[in-house]
């Protein structure tokens, strides 16, 4: 293929700087769109939950109360853990804004740590149910419980992977382009808050109602 004589240099605009009309750079716009699609994903699952639950003669199907099946204290603890991790996430971004990489690393490590704590607690909750022989196939309560919390758990793992990248190899960008790096932390933060928010909906609707 014969190339034309000379193409002008053209990096992609608005990768770091905000667009004058929309007021945000490309990455942040992209993450908001991604979250919109995530709302539709979890929205569809929540709607399915509502439909199946309202169609059931009794909920949970095996009788009794939801709060007798799930571990409400552990769920409450996990809610606190995730909310705290959202705060540490904001602090890690604020540290970038204030120009301190060590403080960023501290808060980001705390976020990843709290996310891991969440997963460990979730593991014990799952294990208890498995020990009782309560698998997703047991009845539709367990089907929905494991599908929703499982998908949410996968999102937590995704967040841990992204945040770990930003904490380690990704943070090299701090020396070359601190503004771009700060944007990345902010975008990861938006995602993290969303994952947190999903849990805020999951906890009452699966544990308390």
């Amino acid at each position, binding site marked *: 293929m014969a190339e034309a004589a000379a*193409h002008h240099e053209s990096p*992609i605009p608005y990768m770091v700087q905000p667009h004058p009309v929309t007021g945000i750079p490309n990455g942040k716009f992209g993450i908001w769109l991604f979250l919109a699609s995530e709302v539709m994903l979890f929205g569809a699952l929540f709607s399915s939950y509502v439909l199946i639950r309202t169609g059931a003669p009794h909920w949970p199907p095996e009788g009794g109360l939801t709060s007798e099946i799930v571990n409400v204290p552990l769920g409450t603890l996990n809610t606190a853990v995730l909310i705290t991790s959202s705060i540490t996430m904001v602090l890690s971004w604020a540290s970038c804004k204030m120009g301190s990489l060590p403080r960023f690393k501290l808060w980001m490590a705390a976020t990843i740590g709290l996310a891991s704590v969440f997963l460990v607690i979730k593991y014990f909750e799952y294990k208890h149910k498995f020990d009782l022989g309560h698998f997703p196939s047991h*009845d539709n309560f367990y089907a929905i419980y494991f599908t929703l919390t499982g998908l949410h758990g996968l999102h937590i793992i995704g967040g841990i992977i992204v945040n770990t990248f930003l904490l380690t190899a990704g943070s090299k960008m701090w020396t070359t382009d601190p503004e771009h790096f700060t944007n990345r932390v902010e975008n990861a933060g938006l995602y993290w808050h969303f994952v947190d928010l999903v849990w805020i909906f999951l906890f009452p609707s699966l544990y308390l109602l």
Partner: protein
Amino acid sequence: MSETTTHNGHDHAHAGHHELPFWRKYIFSVDHKVIGIQYAVTALFFLLFGFTLMMIMRWQLAYPGQPLPVIGKILGETAMPGGVMAPEFYNQLGAMHGTIMVFLGVVPLAVGGFGNFVVPLQIGAPDMAFPRLNMASYWVFLPGCVLMISSFFFPGGAAQSGWTSYPPLSDIASVGQTVWCFSMVLIITSSLLGSINFIVTIVQLRAKGLSYWRLPFFVHAQLVTAFLLLLAFPPLEAATVMQIMDRVAGTSFFLPSGLVVSGEQLKVAGGGSPLLWQHLFWFLAHPEVYVLILPAMGIVAEVIANNTRKPLWGYRLLVYSVVFLGFMSFVVWAHHMFMTGMGTTMSTFFQTTTMIISIPSVIILTCFIMSLYGGNIRFTTPMLFATAFLPMFAIGGLTGLPLGLTASDIYLHDTFYVIGHFHYVVAPGTLFALFAGVYYWFPKATGKQMNATLGKIHFWTSFVCINFVFMPMFFQGMAGLSRRLYDPTVYAHGRGVQALNVVISLGAWGLGLSQIPFIVNFFMSLKRGARVAENPWNATTLEWAAPSPPGHGNFLTEPVVYREPYEYSVPGHANDYSPQFVEGS
């Protein structure tokens, strides 16, 4: 999301050098043009593949129970014992034909192919907003396709519950259905990555002077399409996840209590709802219909304006209509479900919204027809396909109205009438528009012009054959012939229209032969086509400002837009076209 390549602009933007190794330039490329061509070629292959499945299936429909010569032997004893098609294999062909044509063929060609190649060029951008995400989108899509095709080789064969995969049948089908689910998850992920990229690119990366009212209609159509993909696909992903759970983990999301299969009660917890799947599926799949048709309308708009040498009639009306279509497409899904017993209130609501959504479609079609009026039309190959799109899409659209009204749908539902209706929209409608796009933008992508004679042979033979395929289906459907029947002569009312099945099958095989001139033309022009300059069609939009083919970074100088997209035959001008990128009155 934000990991874009800061460096790819200046690594190899310099004259005539190819610093990138072959596999980075043509295989794992981040260049939107290469990715667009990858998508287009993959999709064209799958269109041919999916069509071939149907051509095999048409044998059984035309000559039920008779052995298929030669090919029957090649397909083996499980699929075609003694050369006669097994019912299970017939079901696999049907389900996979639909799935492949929609998800592996038309959408990847219309959005992944044309969207990726044309949109950044038409808005004067150096590339998509997230080039690496774009590459990831293709490389998630391709494994999804390979997985989908591989399902034929699993025990029990490929998915055989129709392209709609309705439970409870799909929940208890063989393992091929699980493979179908997993490959759908990959394809949905790929389309999600693509749609984010399109929206950000169109909103953020337009060239200087390119306001929304100066965007080519094709870009508007792609923008609306991207929103549909972004918001409608996730519910299907949710549904697919639940179907995987039903099949793998033994849950009962879609399985009601007391279900009896082959005389035995199914050992599941029960309490689920098969209708839930239908709601979630059609919540995607109705917007999906507009994903299939909107990019096609965009292509037709470009080709018509260019070949009538006059501005599009009612450009703003077109844009308002396409946006309104996008919104409305989210509230019509249950018109596919009038027969499920969901209640008359629901049916009335969805019948009303369905009638409303037909209005913008008619406006768009009217604008196109008005655009032809008084034009000095050049009947180039793309224009032939674009012109044929108009009556074909009109037939497809208007035959849809009786299906959107509950009273007439009771009779026509799940008959061949439905097959005729939506194939008129998608095959001689969308696919003809996509062919128009291939002929129209081929010179831009390759720097070579496609052969006009072969193009005309391709068009006229396809146009005649395709009507022999789909027109008789309306009569079969009105005679009451059900779709998805393995043997159409099994019921007495089907035997009266069985002769039409022979006509349809001959039409389908003729249509298959009609694609040979296209395939020959495609490869021959690639090698020996006449070389063209940057603007062979004397067009006005921005992609024609870039060299043919455009190098990395697309434009030689940063493009600036001075006028609206379709300023053809402006009075007092020496030329009959005033490109957007040329300054001066």
